Structures are given as structure tokens and as C-alpha cells.
């Protein structure tokens, strides 16, 4: 084609720009493989023990051990807005695990989210937190994992929504959300607080669930600890926006993180049960530090007058309630099912339950956690002892669950109705 000189110029510039862009994109997206190691180094026991504690604080098994018979062999499906990601095998198996990963390769995966062979890992693996671990801690974790029994378990295929199956796209997520600068202590705070802050950020990755996420699946850094979600449960805000009707004490928080039960507050349900199970096995001093840090944020929540300060059973609906029929249905279910354990004069613990005016789930900004609690109850993780509450999914119809939640919200917590309650019940019950 015989283009005018001017147009040919523009064409050349566009071509040059495209080449430059392609080079930049390639540089952002491409990472080299790291040579496989042929022999596993040996580790002293103190390092392995420290690594074991870090693995508990980081709750690695929560995703990497879906089958207790195969510790760290991976395979747990995780639903994300971008598709289903499966956790990988992090045992030292040479062919399907990380047996051939050198410390350099392990460190790069923890800090940059890059697999040994150079492919980018999905941020369901919270390397945007682990990136701020000290090198000594990464070394110890490496020692722990490289001394676990090797298990042959090939990775399961992910099921991503187009175009997220193309892993190099994660590089652009990393440009936005991967801040790999070193973790900085706050000199104004105590050593214990700083230990807790480090563990919460770099290891336990609390913000992965308790900070809301953006459309792109990254943490919304303008709203730290403002409340997020985990497996469709609401993960409560841990700052001034905490929905808790009563102020937490540091001791209650410590007991909660160690046992899953906090007097006057909650029994851990849903994904938090797994967190508690791991923290119960970690070094108690580290859990105390986590409690100190978390409590300093929770303590920002202003004191509020709520029904939680009052003892006694929940009231009957008012005769002039505009939604009287539904509230009466909810009350009947509360009185005849819930109140048997949750009525006045009981505490939270084995064989007893929290008076519902104190239950945090009633005060959440959305009804998801309450619906999950009513539908699924509380069952301890597989093979673990723990709290038990029967699930009502097979006992109550969706309409009844909705009526119960509406009643509890209004007459238990004294809060305005959840506008999305019926949708949330439908969604929770969708097959």
C-alpha cells in the first residue's frame, strides 16, 4: 500500500511504541526458572521447631492440608471471583512438591509469588503478606517444610474464568498490590505490640480476610481492617468499626484466639475455627503478642449502648410491629429452638451458649455470618475437638431462617433490618 509519507511516520512510531510496550509487559510478566537442587540440605532441630511454630501462626495447613492423612500435600479448592484455585503440594516430594526447590526458590515464592519454574502463583497464596517476613523466618519455614514427609500428590488443575487462566496477568496485580518493602516496627509501641504487628501482617495475614478487597481482588488499602469476607462469611472489622456490641478486653481476645471461645462475645464459627485451631498450637507468647496488637485496634471502637448489656431472654414482638407475622414466626423459632441453649443465665462454653443479644453476628453489617451459623451450625474441623451447634438447614425452610434472622436482628440486637436479608438466605441455600 502506498501511504503518504506522514502516515508512514505515524505507523513507524506506533510500531516502535508497541515493541516498547511488549518489552515492558514481558519484563513485568516473565520470571526465569531457578535451577532445581539435586540434594536437600540438612537442618538443625531448633530451626525446624521455629519453622513449625511459624507454620501454625501462618495457618499454612489451613489451605495446604485439606486431607489430614496427607499433611501439606495440597489440593484444596478455593473459590475466588476469578475462578477456583487449588492449593499446591508443599511437601518435599521431588516430582510433585517442593523437593527440588532451593532456599532461593522458596524465598522467591514467599516474597514475589513466583514458582520455582518461573510461573506466577495466584494471590490466593498470600505472598503479599509473606513478602514482609524476615529472611531468618523464611529460612526456618523452609527447614520445617523440607523435613516433612514427602507425599506424591500432583497439583489439581485450576478452573479459572477467562482470561485469568493466563497466569502472567498476575504480574499486573503484583504491580498494584505487592509491596515487598521490609516490615518496619513502630518505635512508639512496645516490643510485644511490634511482635504482634509483625506476626499479624507478615505471617498470620489477618488482613487477607478482615480488610475488604477491591474489584481486582487486592486489599483495599484505604480501609485497613474495616471488615472483609472469608468463604462467604463476613469477617468482622477489627478497628473502630468493629460490630461487637460489648468492648473486648485483651484477655478475652487472647482466650478467643487460643480456644475459640470468648466470654460475652462469641464462639468461633466458619473459617475462624481453623484459625483458632492453628493458633491454639502455636507459641502462646506469640498469640499474646497477636492479641495485644489486635486489641489496640479493637479498642478504638466507641462504647455503645446495646441490648447486650441487658440480661434475660429476648422479648416477644411488639403488637404494633409493622412486620408482626414474620416477627412472630421468628420469635416462635427462637423460643422453641434457639432458647433451649441460648436463653438467659447461660454462658458460652461446652453445653451452654451465648445469650443472643451478645452475639456479634447479629450486629454485623450484613446477615451472611448469621445465616451460615443458623444453617450450618458450628462443627469443629475434621478430626479436632471443639464447639458444637446443630445446623438448621435441614430443619428450617429458607422462609423460616429469614424470619428468625429478621427477628434476632430487630429484637436481639435492636439494629435496623438488613435490606439484603432475603437475597442472602436465597444465595446461602442455592445448590
Amino acid at each position, binding site marked *: 500500500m502506498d501511504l503518504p509519507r506522514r502516515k508512514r511516520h505515524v505507523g513507524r512510531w506506533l510500531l516502535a511504541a508497541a515493541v516498547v510496550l511488549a518489552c515492558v509487559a514481558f519484563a513485568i510478566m516473565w520470571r526465569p526458572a531457578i535451577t532445581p537442587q539435586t540434594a536437600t540440605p540438612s537442618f538443625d532441630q531448633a530451626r525446624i521447631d521455629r519453622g513449625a511454630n511459624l507454620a501454625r501462626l501462618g495457618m499454612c495447613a489451613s489451605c495446604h492440608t485439606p486431607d489430614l492423612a496427607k499433611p501439606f500435600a495440597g489440593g484444596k479448592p478455593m473459590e475466588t471471583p476469578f475462578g477456583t484455585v487449588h492449593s499446591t503440594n508443599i511437601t518435599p516430594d521431588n516430582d510433585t512438591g517442593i523437593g527440588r526447590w532451593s532456599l532461593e526458590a522458596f524465598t522467591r515464592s514467599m516474597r514475589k509469588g513466583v514458582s520455582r519454574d518461573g510461573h506466577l502463583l495466584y494471590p490466593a497464596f498470600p505472598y503479599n503478606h509473606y513478602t514482609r517476613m524476615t529472611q531468618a523466618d523464611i529460612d526456618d519455614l523452609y527447614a520445617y517444610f523440607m523435613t516433612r514427609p514427602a507425599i506424591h500428590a500432583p497439583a489439581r488443575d485450576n478452573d479459572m474464568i477467562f482470561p485469568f487462566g493466563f497466569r502472567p496477568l498476575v504480574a499486573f496485580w503484583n504491580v498494584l498490590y505487592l509491596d515487598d518493602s521490609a516490615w518496619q516496627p513502630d518505635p512508639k509501641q512496645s516490643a510485644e505490640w511490634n511482635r504482634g504487628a509483625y506476626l499479624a501482617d507478615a505471617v498470620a495475614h489477618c488482613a487477607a480476610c478482615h480488610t475488604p478487597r477491591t474489584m481486582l481482588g487486592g486489599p483495599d488499602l484505604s480501609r485497613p481492617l474495616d471488615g472483609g469476607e472469608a468463604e462467604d462469611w463476613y469477617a468482622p472489622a477489627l478497628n473502630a468499626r468493629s460490630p461487637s456490641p460489648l468492648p473486648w478486653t485483651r484477655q478475652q481476645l487472647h482466650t478467643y484466639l487460643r480456644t475459640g471461645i470468648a466470654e460475652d462475645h462469641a464462639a468461633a464459627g466458619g473459617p475462624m475455627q481453623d484459625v483458632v485451631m492453628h493458633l491454639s498450637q502455636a507459641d502462646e507468647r506469640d498469640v499474646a503478642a497477636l492479641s495485644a496488637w489486635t486489641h489496640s485496634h479493637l479498642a478504638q471502637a466507641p462504647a455503645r449502648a446495646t441490648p447486650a448489656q441487658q440480661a434475660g431472654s429476648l422479648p416477644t414482638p411488639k403488637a404494633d410491629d409493622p412486620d408482626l407475622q414474620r416477627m412472630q414466626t421468628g420469635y416462635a423459632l427462637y423460643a422453641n*429452638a434457639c432458647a*433451649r441453649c441460648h436463653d438467659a443465665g447461660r454462658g458460652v462454653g461446652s453445653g451452654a451458649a451465648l445469650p443472643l443479644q451478645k452475639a456479634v453476628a447479629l450486629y454485623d453489617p450484613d446477615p451472611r455470618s448469621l445465616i451460615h451459623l443458623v444453617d450450618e451450625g458450628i*462443627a469443629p474441623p475434621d478430626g479436632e475437638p471443639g464447639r458444637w*451447634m*446443630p445446623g*438448621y*438447614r435441614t*430443619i428450617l*425452610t429458607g422462609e*423460616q431462617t429469614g424470619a428468625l434472622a429478621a427477628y434476632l436482628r430487630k429484637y436481639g440486637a435492636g439494629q435496623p433490618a438488613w435490606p439484603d436479608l432475603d437475597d442472602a438466605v436465597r444465595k446461602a441455600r442455592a445448590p
Partner: protein
Amino acid sequence: MTTYRLQVNGKQHAVDTDPDTPLLYVLRNDLELSGAKFGCGLGQCGSCTVLVDDQPAMSCLVPVSSVGRRAVRTVEGLGTGDKPGVLQQAFIDEQAAQCGYCIAGMIVQATALLERTPRPTDAQIRAHMSPNLCRCGTHMRILRAVRRAADVLAKQPAGAKR
């Protein structure tokens, strides 16, 4: 007192009782179906398990007023002494009962599993049966009985009655 119409094991019943009466009491006292047992009254043990619209439910926690038109099935609906159902026969064959108090709930709970998942894995059986407790400690036999029933059903021609 209110009159409630209940469908239990395929039959219609009319029961006069208070709205907050647990379904378990109605089954045992009014309808004289004493298979489902009162264990803890708190939904913690599963001995009162019945099926409500094919779903396992702890009948001690179900107010009779909330049942509505949903169909209730109890262990009595699964077979008789002369003609036990497949699960009932499997529990006999494995001698899964010690004192027997939990067994009706166990059989009903297992019925719900096999109706939806005819070929369960051992892990699925364990997970599904986990709400039901046996204080005598025959859990291993109970799990074997459920496995046996699943195997028997798998050999039956499609559509055969459970």
C-alpha cells in the same frame, strides 16, 4: 391448643397440641411412634433424628408449628420387624447396636445419605454421620453397617425399593 395436620410415614394425622411442642414429643406421645428417642433435647446427640422432606432433622428442636406441609419420616417408615429395610438389615448383620438408644437416629441419618449419595466414600459416611453420637462406642460397627447397606443397594437393580 391448636390442631396441626402432619404427614408422617405417608399417613395424615391431626394432632391437638401447643405450637411450641417439639415434633419429637408429638411423634412419641401423640402418634406413639417411639423409634426416635429423647437424648439431650439440645440437638447435640442425634438420637431424635427424623426425615423432614427427605432431610435429616433433630426432631427435639423442631417446633411442631414449623413443620407445615412437609412430609415426616421416622425409622418406623423404613421397615418392620418382619421385613426390615436394607439399612435396618445391615445394622442387624453388623450387630451395630449395643444399648440401641442411638440406633434409630443413626439409621434415619444414614437413610438421608444413601438416598442422595448412593455410593458414598468412607469419608462421606463419616462426615455425614458425625452429628450422631453413640455412647456405647459402636461407631465402627455403625460405619460398617452403612457401608454394607450401600454395597447391598449398589447390587440391586435400579429402582428397587430401599
